[in-house]
């Protein structure tokens, strides 16, 4: 049974059409992200898949340290050194970024008030907006001579340089997310802890941080994802050298930087071109897993 208001509501007036069209636009907007991500995955898989099946020796791919894909007679497609390069730079970046960003997040969320707080939040976001090529320049022109001077090493383009740069790049995003996680802890937790006679430090250390644990972990994982995916700054600051790092003063090369440096110069469809896409697939899977893990962990806090 329909009553009168229902019928009026269903009348196709201008408002109804606006309503419908907005609905469609929002739907397309929402679904396009999924379409694009699938499209991208299909594209990179299509370009690299034939190679993975026909030519590539997966064992060699992951365990060989030799990368000379353009060799005419005997091309080598080992990405072990590149994986270790990316991992070492990201690892060092996290060692630098985690204390800074968590410290900053705790300060912004728990201690800073009024103008200081607002100013800090804006500044942190501004820091996140610096283009990566600018960070790369800093690595190349400021950090490079500085590292040579300070540590007496032959080259300043190395794991240390790229790790510091990447740490500074990842910290703002991690700070923002970590701060949100801390803010999400209900005030009654803090009040309860204070009522029990806890000092400010004890409140944060014993109550707020454990309660925000998942969100903080999620922030760290997103930072790791950023580190894995970063290209330009890493290309400029690592020294771009296929090398298994023995110390932070060794030059390395990252997976992303290898694609960036070589893809433009390969013939479409050649083995070299396809192996670069294979690296792309590998990176895609890694960052996907990291983001998925971060997402699941962040989701965890809402349920708990």
């Amino acid at each position: 049974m329909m009553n009168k208001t229902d019928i009026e509501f269903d009348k196709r007036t201008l408002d109804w059409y606006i309503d419908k069209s907005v609905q469609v636009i929002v739907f397309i907007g929402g679904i396009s992200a999924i379409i694009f991500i699938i499209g991208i995955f299909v594209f990179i898989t299509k370009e690299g898949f034939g190679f993975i099946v026909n030519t590539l020796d997966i064992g060699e791919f992951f365990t060989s340290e030799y990368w000379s894909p353009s060799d005419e007679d005997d091309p080598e497609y080992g990405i072990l050194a590149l994986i270790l390069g990316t991992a070492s730079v990201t690892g060092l970046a996290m060692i630098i970024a985690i204390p800074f960003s968590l410290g900053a997040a705790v300060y912004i969320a728990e201690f800073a008030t009024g103008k200081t707080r607002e100013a800090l939040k804006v500044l942190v976001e501004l820091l996140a907006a610096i283009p990566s090529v600018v960070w790369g320049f800093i690595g190349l022109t400021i950090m490079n001579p500085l590292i040579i001077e300070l540590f007496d090493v032959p080259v300043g383009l190395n794991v240390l340089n790229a790790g510091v740069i990447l740490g500074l790049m990842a910290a703002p995003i991690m700070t923002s997310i970590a701060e949100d996680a801390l803010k999400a802890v209900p005030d009654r937790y803090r009040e309860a802890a204070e009522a029990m006679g806890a000092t400010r430090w004890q409140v944060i250390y014993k109550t707020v941080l454990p309660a925000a644990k998942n969100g903080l972990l999620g922030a760290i994982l997103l930072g790791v994802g950023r580190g894995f995916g970063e290209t330009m700054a890493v290309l400029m600051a690592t020294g771009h050298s296929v090398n298994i790092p023995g110390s932070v003063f060794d030059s390395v090369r990252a997976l992303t930087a290898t694609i960036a440096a070589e893809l433009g110069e390969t013939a479409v469809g050649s083995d070299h071109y396809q192996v670069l896409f294979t690296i792309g697939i590998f990176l895609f899977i890694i960052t996907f897993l990291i983001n998925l893990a971060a997402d699941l962990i962040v989701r965890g806090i809402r349920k708990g």
Partner: protein
Amino acid sequence: MKKNILFLTAISASLLATHGFAQSRDTIQNKGSDTLVNVAQAWAEEYQKVNENVAVAVSGGGSGTGIAAMINGTVDIANASRKMKEKEIKLAQDKGQNPIEHIVGFDALAIFLHKDNPIKSMTIEQLREIYIRDGKSEKWTDLGESVPGCKNDEIVVVSRQNNSGTYAYFKQAVLDKGKFRSGTLDMHGSKDVVELVEKTPCAIGYSGLAYATDHVAMPCVTSDGGECVQPSVETASDGSYPIARPLMMYTNGEPEGEIKNYMDWVLSDEGQCIIFNKGYAPVRDVNCGT
């Protein structure tokens, strides 16, 4: 998904349309070798005065870039500081291209050292031991020298990215087709090599002679116990410098029309004097009046 495909098709169709339009005016697309890019630009600029109806658009990126573009059919002339590999020629033919090689000059590949480096002459064998995989020379002391400012004596080996023509030529001429050692710093342009060597006392690098500056040292090079020859335009053209290479331009099929006019002009006295003035050796003796 279908919508997405339609959208992409629309974009690519419009890109093709604009591309086709640009081609219909007399623009010669010229791309490739970083070694040749300065000369190619100078040629393009001078050619404006010769024939103002034709514009030559020059871009660099490395021999690999130019050759890839030739294979994909997106350039009229590809510059290369190495020959196209057989595989690449075959790939191009499969795609309906027919690359024809034109030698437009010669280039001496200079070895660069920091200017405090006391080494004044090197043999091809010494270079090989420094650059080849598992080579014996890892420290300057292995060559019997110590370099001031280089504390731990370790040789910082500077190379190029693996699809640069300079890289390919060096590999063929010095490493005898052997592989480069791991841990070379692979720079993304000839200029970057010179800049890095300039700032790094422990470094050794190689690049086209035209990129030499006053801030780096260039040793003379000996091959097979012969005389030690300094890299220069003269020693590159008379063939006495052991690591000099031809510089090439590839056209798609025998050049015709405006492209033929341009290639002819490049190989004329006027064009060859431009390459000479940029620090490369011309293909034949020309009198440039200097």
